[in-house]
């Protein structure tokens, strides 16, 4: 570096820096996609095996037990919670946890008197925590 002119140093750092940063991150993309696919495939296969076992078990059960009542699709909700709010909560849980988490009921959390609501506390914490 000592023998090069300022212009040469500038060109070398610019090209080397951008090329290396992009190359490393492109390599990371490929590796993330590779291992994500591998994990996804392995988990899908395992879920497939579990599903087959569950189906076999339920078929053998059906022969011995009367058929159960159909499960209600909508979770039981408290009377004062509107269907739109229940729908929004269900969508949020699905987005976070996927299909594996069924929602059985929705009810209001206990309200505290004389203190900040949970949302306000979460907002205050989020805005004041260090970074």
């Amino acid at each position, binding site marked *: *570096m000592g023998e090069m002119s300022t212009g040469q140093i*500038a060109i070398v750092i610019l090209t080397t820096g951008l090329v290396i940063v992009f190359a490393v991150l492109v390599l990371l993309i490929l590796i993330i996609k590779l291992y994500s696919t591998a994990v996804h495939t392995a988990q899908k296969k395992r879920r497939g095996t579990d599903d087959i076992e569950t189906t076999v078990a339920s078929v053998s059960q059906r022969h011995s037990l009367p058929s159960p009542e159909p499960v209600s699709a909508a979770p039981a909700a408290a009377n004062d919670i509107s269907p739109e709010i229940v729908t929004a909560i269900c969508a949020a849980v699905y987005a976070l946890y996927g299909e594996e988490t069924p929602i059985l009921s929705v009810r209001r959390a206990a309200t505290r008197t004389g203190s900040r609501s949970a949302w306000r506390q979460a907002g205050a914490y989020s805005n004041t925590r260090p970074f």
Partner: protein
Amino acid sequence: MFQEFLTAITDILKSSGFATSDWQNYVMIGISCVLLYLAIKKQFEPLLLLPIAFGMLLVNVFPGIMAEPTAQANGGLFYYLYRGVKLGIYPPLIFLGVGAMTDFGPLIARPSSLLLGAAAQLGIFITFIGALALGFDPKAAASIGIIGGADGPTAIYVTSKLKPELLGPIAVAAYSYMALVPVIQPPIMRAMTTKKERCIVMEQLRPVSKLEKIMFPIIITVLISLLLPDATPLVGMLMLGNLMRESGVVSRLSNTAQNELMNIITIFLGVTVGATATGKVFLSSQTIKIIVMGLIAFCIGTAGGVLFGKLMCKATHGKVNPLIGSAGVSAVPMAARVSQKVGQADNPSNFLLMHAMGPNVAGVIGSAVAAGVLLSILG
């Protein structure tokens, strides 16, 4: 006896700060008060700007607080605390806490976000050229350019290794611009995108499994450390924090990293970095150049990310909203919130926050890689 009393008073006055300070110290005291006002009243990154400003105040009222030890006396308080900065200890520990607080799920769900994180580092290298043109030497130019990564710990780490004399102005510039992200970015984002592009609604991200989130930090650490060993302290600690979070088996350690450790290191880092801002270093034309170049670095980084976002939008036939490109600067999570806000201004039902978090956290990795490149070439 009266004479001795007068002599004692005179000696005390002669050793006081009023006798030993010069005009530069008083100007710096004024500047530190302005920064304290910005931190407390305007809430400009107060968690770091407040300790930085107070460290600046302390060193200018009592320069001995940073004094080196001599044969006759110990060094000042901040001299010993500053060892953590000089030896490159504090920034990696900050990254440990950052990793423990970060969810890399949106990045794993859409790995192409890493490209946006890479594009946003354009500001670092373009500013490097500009700083060279202004007469800075390569190490100083690299320290100034790294402000464009919008990553405080990375900027401090690189500067402490390459040009520690410029730590004060660079740290103040870096954290001030990070606080100004909601002001600096939106005009650039609006100027570089059309309304149609800003209104693009992106597909929901796929769910990411726990195993993927656990493997991610291990793979990233191994890969980047082998390719760029100089980036290992930063990337390694970032990924260690993340692994502690995602593994779920060391919640005590994860909580400590996110809270107590971060707070302690933030205090030590802030006051000691601020204490490097003496009048001699800060009150020079060099500082004004650093502040201007830092702003340019930020703007170019934002523009680079948005431009690459537009490229990805074209390549995916309109599936990617270019606004998330600006989140490739690593000011987490402010830059992602800015993308959300600007997108919602044109399309109120557009929720870009989680889509923008991918490039945002990718920018943290990207700026650490860029730092590793600069350190390996110039260190």
